[in-house]
C-alpha cells in the first residue's frame, strides 16, 4: 500500500493532469448528451487543435531550456501567408512550397535563437520583437487581404484522411489495423525494456502494474481509432502528430540532446561546467520551434483554405499555457512532451465542450485563464510540500 502511495505521489504531476483530462472529457460527455465523443466531433477536436499541439511540442523544449517564445503565432501566420502567396499568386508546386516554408521557419528560429543564445538578449524581448516583426511582415506580403484558396493537394495536410485500402465496409479498416500494429509495437517496446531491467536486477513495476498500464493504453488507442474509423478514419494530421510525439518523446527521454536540454534548464552554470554546449543547445531549441511553428502555420492555412493577416493571433498564449498546464516548470528543467500534449488537449476539450454547450467566447477565455492559474498553483503547491 505504501508503495502504491509512493508511485502515486511520484507521478501525481504527470498522471494528475491526465486524470483531470479524462474527468473533463467525462463531464462534457455527460453534459452535452454524448456529443463530445461522437466520431465527427472527435475528428473535429483533433483538426481544431492540431496546430496548437504541434507548437506545444516545440515550446516544451524551449520552456524546459529555461526560455519562452512569444512569436510562434506570428511565425505561423507569416509562413501560412508565404505559402499562400507562393502557391496562389506564383503557382509554385505545393511540395516545393512546403519544403521551402519549413526551411524558412527553421531559419527564423535560428535568427531568434542567435540573439538569445549568443548575444544574451532575454528570450522574452527577442520573441516579443519577433511577434511584432512577423505579424507586420504577414500583412506586408498579403497586402492586407486574404489569399486563397489552395489546391486540393495542399489542403490534404489538414483536412485529408488516410486512404482505406480495404474500402467497402462501414468502418475504416486501415485505421483499425494501424491501431492494432501501433498498440502491439508499444507493448513490445515496453516489455523489452522491462525484461532488460529485470536482467540487471533493477526495481521494476510489478507484473500487475505493467499489465494494467499496457491494457489501459491499448484500450485508449483502440477506442479512439474505433471512433475515428466509424467516421472517415485517421486524419492525416493525426498521423503527423503521432510521428512528432514519438520522435520528440524519444529525443527528450533517450538521447544526449534531450538530457543536455534538461540539464541546461535545470542549472545552466552547472551544465556549462559539465561540458554541455549551452549556447548551441539554446539556439537549436529555438530553431526547432521555428520549424514546428512553420509546420503549424501550414496546417492552419490548409485547414482554413486561406491565409489571412489575422491568422494565429493569440496562439502563443494557448501554446505556452498548454506547456504549463502539462507540468512544465516556469524556471526550466522540468516538463514532458506528453504532458504538454495533455495540457493542450485539456484546453482543447474545454473549448470544444463549452462551445457545444453554447458558452460564449468571453466566458471561455475567463475559465481557461482560471484553469491555467490553478494548474500552476497545483505544481507550486506540490513542490513546496516536498
Amino acid at each position, binding site marked *: 500500500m505504501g508503495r502504491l502511495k509512493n508511485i502515486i505521489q511520484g507521478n501525481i504531476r504527470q498522471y494528475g493532469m491526465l486524470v483531470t483530462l479524462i474527468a473533463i472529457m467525462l463531464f462534457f460527455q455527460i453534459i452535452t448528451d454524448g456529443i463530445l465523443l461522437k466520431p465527427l466531433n472527435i475528428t473535429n477536436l483533433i483538426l481544431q487543435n492540431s496546430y496548437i499541439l504541434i507548437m506545444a511540442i516545440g515550446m516544451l523544449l524551449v520552456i524546459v531550456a529555461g526560455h519562452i517564445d512569444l512569436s510562434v503565432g506570428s511565425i505561423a501566420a507569416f509562413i501560412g501567408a508565404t505559402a499562400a502567396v507562393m502557391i496562389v499568386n506564383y503557382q509554385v508546386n505545393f511540395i516545393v512550397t512546403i519544403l521551402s516554408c519549413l526551411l524558412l521557419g527553421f531559419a527564423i528560429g535560428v535568427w531568434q535563437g542567435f540573439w538569445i543564445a549568443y548575444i544574451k538578449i532575454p528570450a522574452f524581448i527577442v520573441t516579443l520583437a519577433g511577434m511584432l516583426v512577423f505579424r507586420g511582415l504577414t500583412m506586408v506580403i498579403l497586402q492586407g487581404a486574404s489569399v486563397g484558396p489552395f489546391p486540393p493537394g495542399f489542403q490534404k495536410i489538414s483536412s485529408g484522411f488516410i486512404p482505406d485500402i480495404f474500402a467497402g465496409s462501414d468502418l475504416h479498416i486501415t485505421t483499425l489495423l494501424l491501431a492494432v500494429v501501433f498498440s502491439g509495437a508499444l507493448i513490445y517496446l515496453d516489455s523489452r525494456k522491462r525484461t532488460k531491467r529485470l536482467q540487471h536486477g533493477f526495481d521494476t513495476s510489478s507484473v500487475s502494474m505493467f499489465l494494467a498500464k499496457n491494457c489501459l493504453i491499448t484500450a485508449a488507442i483502440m477506442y479512439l481509432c474505433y471512433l475515428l474509423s466509424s467516421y472517415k478514419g485517421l486524419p492525416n494530421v493525426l498521423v503527423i502528430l503521432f510521428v512528432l510525439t514519438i520522435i520528440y518523446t524519444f529525443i527528450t527521454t533517450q538521447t544526449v540532446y534531450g*538530457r543536455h536540454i534538461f540539464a541546461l534548464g535545470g542549472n545552466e552554470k552547472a551544465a556549462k*561546467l559539465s561540458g554541455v554546449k549551452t549556447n548551441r543547445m539554446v539556439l537549436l531549441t529555438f530553431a526547432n520551434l521555428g520549424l514546428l511553428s512553420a509546420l503549424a502555420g501550414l496546417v492552419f492555412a490548409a485547414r482554413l483554405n486561406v491565409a489571412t493577416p489575422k491568422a494565429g493571433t493569440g496562439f502563443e498564449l494557448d501554446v505556452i499555457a498548454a506547456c504549463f498546464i502539462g507540468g512544465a516548470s516556469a524556471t526550466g528543467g*522540468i516538463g514532458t512532451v506528453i504532458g504538454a500534449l495533455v495540457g493542450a488537449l485539456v484546453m482543447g476539450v474545454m473549448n470544444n465542450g463549452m462551445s457545444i454547450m453554447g458558452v460564449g467566447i468571453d466566458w471561455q477565455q475567463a475559465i481557461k485563464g482560471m484553469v491555467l492559474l490553478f494548474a500552476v498553483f497545483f505544481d507550486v503547491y506540490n513542490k513546496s510540500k516536498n
Partner: protein
Amino acid sequence: MSNAILEMHNITKAFPGVKALDDVNLTVSHGEIHALVGENGAGKSTLMKVLSGIYPVGSYEGDIYFRGEECAFRDISDSEKLGIVIIHQELALIPFLSIAENIFLGNEQARHGVIDWHTTHVKAKKLMDKVGLQESPDVLVTNVGVGKQQLVEIAKALSKEVKLLILDEPTATLNESESGKLLQLLLQFKEQGISSILISHKLNEVEQVADSITILRDGATVETLDCKNGDISEDHIIFGMVGRDLTHRFPKRTVDIGKKVLEVQGWNVYHPLHAARKVVDDVSLNLREGEVLGIAGLMGSGRTELAMSLFGHSYGQNISGTVKKHETIIDVSTVERAIRNGLAYVTEDRKTFGLILDQDIKNNITLTNLQSVTNGLVIDQNQEILHCRDFKDKLNIKCSSILQKTVNLSGGNQQKVVLSKWLFANPDILILDEPTRGIDVGAKFEIYTIINKLATEGKSIIVISSELPEILGVCDRIYIMNEGRIVGEMEAKEASQEKIMKCIMQQAEELKHGTS
C-alpha cells in the same frame, strides 16, 4: 549579569545531517568589542544568523536575552528594531542605487510615502562623516571600492540606531590600511556605547581591539577569554580553535609521486567585466603523477579564478599562457576540450555550479560523459544505473536510491555526487575547489580518504582550500597565492600555518612599499 547587553543560552541548531550548533553560550557586555573566533564551519555565522533572526524562533533551541529581555525574532526586521544589526561577509547593497539610497533602504526618509530627498542627503552625509566616508551621497555603490562599500553598510547600520553591531569577517576583502581604519571605527563606537561582535580569522586584529574572545569549535563553545587580564596568547587561541590532534583528522597514505603531468606557464587572466583588472597574474605551476598539490591563500586571492580559467576558460577574459600535459601543449579553451584533455574541476559552490538540484543522482553523475553510455543516439539507461550504483557503493553516498533528487541530500552526500560526476569523466587531473566546505567532520574524513585513494591510483590532484590545516593535512606540496600571484611554494613537510601566513603577509608588505 546586569552588565550584559546580550546573553545567548544553550543555543542548539541542527540542519539535516549536521548539528551546526550544540549548546552554545555567548554573553556580550555593554560597550565591549567581543570577538568570535573559530575555524570555518565552527558555527560562527550560524550563531549570528540565529541571533539576527535569519533563522527564526522555533528553528533552533535555546534562549536569547537582549538588554535583559527575552527575544523571539521571527525575521531580521525584528532584531533590527531592537538595534541588532548584522553586516555579512557578502555585502547586501544594491549596486545601481546611490550611497544615500542604500543607507536608507527599507528605512526611507519619506513623508506620506514620498521620499524627502533633502533630508535623505543631509542625514546620509552626517552618517558618512561619522564613518569617515568621503564620497558624494549620490555616487552609485557599484562605483566605489569594497572598503568604502563596507563603510556604507556601517553607515546604514548607524542609521538604524544600532546598539549591537555584528561584523562577519569585515576585513577579509580589505587591504591593510582599510582594515586599520575599520578597526579604529569600532573602537570609536565603543566609546559611544555601541557594542560589537567581531568575527574574524585574523588573530592579530582580534588581539588589537577585542575586550573578550569567545572560541567556537565544531558548533560548541570552547571558552570565553577576558582580554583585560592581558595574558591572551595567539597560541592559546589557536589551540582552542583547532583543539584536536591534527594527525588524526587526516587519513595516512603512502606517497608515490611520478613524472610531471601538468605544467602551466605564464597564465594571465583578466576580470570578465573590468577588462583592466588582472585577476591572475603570471602564474606558473606544475603537477606530478600521484601528487596532491595544495593552493593556499585568502579569499579573493585568485585561486578559484585560476582554476576556473584553466578549466575551459570558464572565468575571465583575455586569457594568455600555456598549459602542457606530458610536455605537449593542450587546448583548454572550452570546457569540452578541457574534459577531453583529462581535466576535471570540482567547484567550491556545488549548488550553483555543481549540481542540477532538481534532477536525480544518476542524471547528475553521467552528465559529464554521456557519450560513454550512449549507443548510436540512445542513452543506455541501464548502463547508467550500473555505473551510478558503483559510485554509490565506492563513495558511500547515503541516499534512498540513485533516482533520488540531489536537492534532498545532505551537503556531504551532495559533495560525493559532484565528485562521482567528475570521476565518471575519468580525468587524470582533478582540481578540487574547497572540497569540504560546509560538510561535517565525518564526511570530511571520507572525502580525504577518497582524495588519497585517487592519488594512489596515479591521478594528480590540486586541492584549493581556505582551511590551512586541511592543506597541510592532505597535500604533498603547497603553492601560496595572494593578489592573483603565486607568492611561495613549499613542501608540506616543511610547511606550517605560520609559514604560509607569513608568506602572504610579506607579499602584502612588499606591495605596499612598492606602491608608496
